[in-house]
């Protein structure tokens, strides 16, 4: 065959090689992502907290799932940034992992290193309970972040978000807006997150029960995967399934980028949408007030910064300054604030990118 001739082979290979090299050179300049403000962690404002006067030195060990999603990435970043705010804290983060086994080993390593306090966001709360209890038995207090351990003996303090409350608050915003518009029989859609997670069930339950109190119900509920492409895919089909919608709650702002894209591509605008989690992009959309997104219910990614603050207080045997109690409480459930155009400026600094 003619293309196997040595000369043409050589020329082609050279062309190919030169093309690859040239492309590589051009492209290598294109991986930069810095645009000035993108890299700032969003916790610095919280350092004026009470009890921040330097005290006994505390080593805090930190373990969380792999940061493969905007929210978890923000969690890890915020924890580290917060620890950096204290002169009396040194911070040891274990490599993030979505493998329960690997996370157990990571926590074990931190225990063996004899850190003073542990902050753990378990990939699966039930599976990590025993290692939490082991740390407590070894005299290391555990601050359990968000996904709760099975047994309260496995942690000193739990701090986390309110998934049920998130659904309730989304529903309440929708009810209020629809009542103001005078809609009596609304068509309400729900784009849930990954359906086999407990947090998704809690969110949907809160949404459903709060809507029911106003006599409303969810007309169509479909689950996406917390990714923009799954959100786009699901929403484009949902828009075909319901030719008219009044309100939509989308559980997650990361997948919401795709959900919004689907709405724009279908040219639909007859309804309004509420987001979830509280990304910077969503809040900017709310502030601009140009699309269907009118509100988002926050699942604060700053909770990891608070957890580090609590860990430091526990390590120094201090209480929380504004409370009368001498000790940090055993459980703190964070409020899921509803961010609208009116208060978006207040929440933009703590949003995640």
């Amino acid at each position, binding site marked *: *065959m003619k*293309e*196997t001739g040595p000369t043409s*082979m050589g020329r082609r290979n050279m062309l*190919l090689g030169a093309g*690859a090299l040239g*492309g*590589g050179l*051009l*492209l290598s*300049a*294109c*991986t*930069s*992502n*810095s*645009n000035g403000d*993108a890299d700032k962690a969003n916790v610095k404002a919280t350092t004026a907290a009470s009890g921040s006067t330097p005290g006994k030195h505390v080593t805090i060990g930190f373990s969380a799932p792999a*940061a*493969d*999603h*905007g929210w*978890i*990435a923000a969690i890890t970043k915020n924890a580290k940034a917060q620890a950096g705010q204290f002169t009396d804290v040194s911070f040891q983060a274990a490599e993030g992992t979505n493998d329960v086994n690997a996370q157990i080993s990571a926590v074990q390593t931190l225990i063996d290193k004899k850190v003073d306090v542990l902050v753990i966001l378990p990939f699966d709360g039930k599976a990590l309970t025993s290692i939490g209890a082991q740390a407590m038995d070894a005299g290391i207090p555990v601050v359990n972040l968000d996904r709760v351990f099975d047994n309260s003996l496995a942690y000193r303090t739990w701090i986390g978000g309110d998934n049920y409350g998130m659904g309730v608050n989304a529903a309440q915003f929708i009810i209020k807006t629809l009542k103001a518009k005078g809609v009596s029989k609304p068509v309400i859609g729900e784009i849930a997150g990954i*359906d*086999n997670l407990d947090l998704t069930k809690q969110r949907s339950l809160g949404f459903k029960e709060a809507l029911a109190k106003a006599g409303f119900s969810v*007309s*169509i*509920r*479909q*689950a996406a*995967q*917390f*990714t*923009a*492409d*799954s*959100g*786009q*895919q*699901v929403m*484009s*089909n*949902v*828009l*075909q*399934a319901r*030719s008219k919608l009044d309100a939509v709650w989308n559980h997650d702002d*990361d997948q919401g*980028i*795709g959900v*919004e*894209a689907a709405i*724009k*591509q*279908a040219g639909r605008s007859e309804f309004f949408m509420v987001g979830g989690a509280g*990304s910077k*992009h969503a809040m900017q959309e709310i502030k601009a007030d140009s699309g269907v997104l009118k509100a988002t219910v926050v699942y604060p990614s700053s909770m990891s910064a608070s957890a580090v603050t609590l860990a430091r207080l526990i390590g120094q045997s201090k209480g929380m300054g504004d409370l009368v109690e001498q000790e940090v409480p055993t459980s703190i459930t964070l409020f899921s604030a509803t961010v609208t155009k009116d208060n978006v400026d207040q929440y933009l600094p703590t949003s995640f*990118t």
Partner: protein
Amino acid sequence: MSDQTTPRPAQEDAPGLPAQAGSGAGVATRPSLVKEGPDPGAAGPGGGLGRQLLRLFPLHQMHSLGLLVVLILLGVVGTATSGNFLTSNNIVNILTSAAVIGVITVGQTFVIIGGGIDLSVGAIVAVASVWCTTVATQSHGLAGMLFTAVVVGAAVGLLNGILIAYGKIVAFITTLAMMASARGVAERISDRQSQVVTVDSFNRIATDKFLGIPLLVYLMAAIVVLGWLLLNRTTFGRHTFAVGGNPEAARLAGIAVRRHTMLLYLLSGVCCGVAAVMLTARTTSGASNLGNLYELDSIAAVIIGGTLLAGGRGSLFGSILGVLVFTTITNIFVLNNLTTDIQEIAKGLIILAAVLLQRTRGARSPA
């Protein structure tokens, strides 16, 4: 996954498939895999390959016909269960949803017919989408973004091809490794954050329409037609079947097997680059978690489309019908607001049914 980890059973299935029954003696050379050792005794002369293909042509049409029946059945079910199914809006929606995975499947079909497999397609889409949406790339505007996505896709595909063809690493392992590391690169570049596209002309790729049909659908149609011509009407296409059917025979027939194998992965990479442009425009963002499990979606479409997982035989038309079957199934589920668990069960059953239906139709017809 388990299907792909063991290519052998698929090959053992082959005698049950119509190809063996229908075509002549030359087919006996076909079952040996790319990864198998040389088998020069059984290899026929190069001239026989073209004739075999001609003989196969009506057969793969039979496969496609079975799938067409499945698609029509789905259409009937959709129309019966939802008034919104048979509307022009919804048909356009199904076609648009199929566009991204359709383009990826074109590349995957070439690779699988050529006796390989590409598990890295989803990760290539992710890395191309992230790379073309960084702040630096977006500053170069539409042209810079398109260039970056396609060249990144091509470069990763080429790297796969070189490792497989010249490094002699099994395709399954090479692309599995690439699946992990390309997604890692995507995570590293994006810092795991969603990168929103601010270049409006880029996002218009997904919103612009011509005669009521989105550009994405034309783009997919164009790539499918080009792919079909390349596969069925050029020397490159005939070489692809030959290399996949029996690489040793292909080599003896004077085909540059290693270079051809490399080019197949390059082709798949370019398709992923184009798909990344389409997906990024559709979602108006680049993120390292885009394209998750697209490798399985595309492989499944290729296989139910009648292409032999062991290579050497297949149909691009069938693959695209496979994509449409999957997209239509998802559409019907959402139109009827079925819950996720029921969707998953039904999807598995429908895939099995589609393959079984094809097999019975195919077995009856050529006899």
